[in-house]
């Protein structure tokens, strides 16, 4: 009778015989099945899992809290937040594009098709589009490119045009361009290798879109340098903006107050929780990426 198992009742995706403890709750702990987990370059992997109806309500910019397998002989004791890459309602799948950087993501990297993977979600406040916006500018770099990718779904659904600037060290790391191109966006890749990723060049591209009246809103994630640029241009031209933020996290649901970042609202500094008040925040209120 002595059990060493953690008390938990994750909803096993695709089965009818697991009981939903709280049907009215928008978030659940699910046991997904891994369909694919392939490397797309030296640093990033693309995970595809089965999803429950509740998980499929995920909005662009929301995240799931992963209970990663261990990459070593030890165990992992906290979950890892991971933003959604694609919500595929038709095939009832979730896709994630993640960078292998620590024990959590290196553990996730060991997942193989057929493995089960426990996650909690959908969590947090995602990106939003306001009626009246006709053209937006999306600027991302590194891991931010994966987080910004679901904006392609938002612009397609809302018939909004977009200029998408993908910044990367080299062309093979400029991800998510295909998703934005399918959504009809103009995709511009800037890289360190050819020098086009310099702030002055990116600034000129954005300034041109503002001059052409094709910048009703800004979106960014993945680089403090690019965030500061976009925040400055947003303030200069009075363009509203949204930024997706990160922080070390514990509960993922609000109560623990681990994942705070600093924001400035009307000249007053305040702390907000990335998990429940974000991860997407007003660009002018954020102090740094």
């Amino acid at each position, binding site marked *: *009778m*002595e*059990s*060493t*198992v*953690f*008390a*938990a*009742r*994750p909803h096993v995706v695709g089965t009818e015989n697991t009981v939903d*403890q*709280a049907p009215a*709750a*928008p*978030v*659940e*702990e699910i046991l997904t099945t891994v369909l694919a987990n392939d490397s797309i370059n030296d640093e990033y992997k693309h995970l595809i899992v089965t999803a429950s109806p509740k998980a499929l309500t995920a909005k662009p910019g929301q995240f799931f809290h992963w*209970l990663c397998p261990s990459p070593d002989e*030890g*165990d*992992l*004791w*906290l*979950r890892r937040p991971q933003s959604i890459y694609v919500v595929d309602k038709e095939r009832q799948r979730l896709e994630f594009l993640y960078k292998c950087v620590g024990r959590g993501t290196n553990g996730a990297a060991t997942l193989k098709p057929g493995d089960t993977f426990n996650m*909690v979600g959908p*969590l947090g406040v995602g990106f939003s589009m306001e009626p009246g916006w006709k053209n937006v500018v999306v600027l991302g770099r590194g891991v931010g490119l994966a987080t910004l990718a679901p904006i392609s779904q938002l612009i397609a659904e809302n018939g909004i045009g977009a200029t998408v600037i993908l910044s990367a060290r080299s062309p093979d790391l400029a991800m998510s361009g295909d998703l934005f191109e399918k959504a009809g966006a103009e995709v511009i890749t800037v890289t360190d290798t050819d020098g086009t990723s310099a702030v002055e060049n990116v600034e000129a591209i954005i300034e041109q879109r503002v001059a052409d009246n094709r910048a009703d809103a800004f979106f960014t994630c993945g680089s403090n340098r690019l965030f500061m640029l976009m925040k400055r241009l947003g303030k200069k031209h009075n363009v509203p903006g949204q930024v997706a933020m990160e*922080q*070390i*996290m*514990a*509960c*993922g*649901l*609000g*109560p*623990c*107050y*681990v*994942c*705070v*970042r600093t924001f400035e609202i009307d000249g007053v500094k305040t*702390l907000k929780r990335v998990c*429940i008040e974000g991860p997407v925040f007003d660009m002018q209120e954020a102090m740094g990426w």
Partner: protein
Amino acid sequence: MVDLSVKIGSFEMTNPVMPASGTFSPEMEQVMDINRLGATLTKTISRELRDGNPPPRVAEVECGMINCIGLPGKGIEYFLENQIPDYLRFSPPLIVSITSTIHEDFAAMAREVTVPGVKALEINISCPTRDPNGGNFALHADETAETVRLVRAATDLPIFVKLSPNAGDIVSIARAAEEAGADALTVANTILSMRIDTHSFRPSLGHKVGGMSGPAVKPIILRMVYQISKAVSIPIIGCGGIVKAEDVVEYMLAGASAVQVGYASFRNPTAMVSIIEDLEEWCDKRGIARVADLTGAVQDDMETDTYIAAAAGI
């Protein structure tokens, strides 16, 4: 049918499971049915607005985590006006956790939060990162007694005193709290600890040190519950590393009347409800009709003669 109800003195619960302070808020309704809990318990309230400690506020360690949140909150006025009504949307009895760095203010806060709907107070005199003479009163028997005595005089609500595992002799602190008028003891807060990042050579926590929780601390806190239960006659609420029903059973056998769950909810957000269900099943299979009968039921009449004990097989 198993009777899961328990009492902490006059405080009645439909089951022995409640959240540990700081790991729960009404925001948990995003993922769970809060009405299943034995009680609800607020994050610790301070009089003033507090930002809390610089991040990082959590570090993962083997079998648990260290936190240094630093008791952030919007202050007592905001709490009374906005947060109490939010908690009272749910049916389990509400326990309010309060703290202060000054004995007299502790009592004043107790008086101010004694409002309709609040069924008990937990006084947090054991935040591990606070000064022993400024809020972390549970490191000393005289400081503990002084706080409890003043709070006792300020409210008629049951007072649960949250003890510190960092005290040199926690049993003497427990006795001091009982003598000063505590109705129950929460055993215990987190264990002061540290992690250093071997890549950066820097502490992993913004506050450098923090309080450890999770399964790693359970054997330590269980021992404290056991020793304290032998020394006091007031009820004990066990708190430390519970992740499954058998852990609840262990704490109750050691002398706890109820338990608090913290870390487990971070790993599995509906862990408390799962533990309640598993506890009922565990009792049912063992033919235990009342879970309350487990309290203090440890069979500790061990053989004291080493030769006789070692003569028997395993």
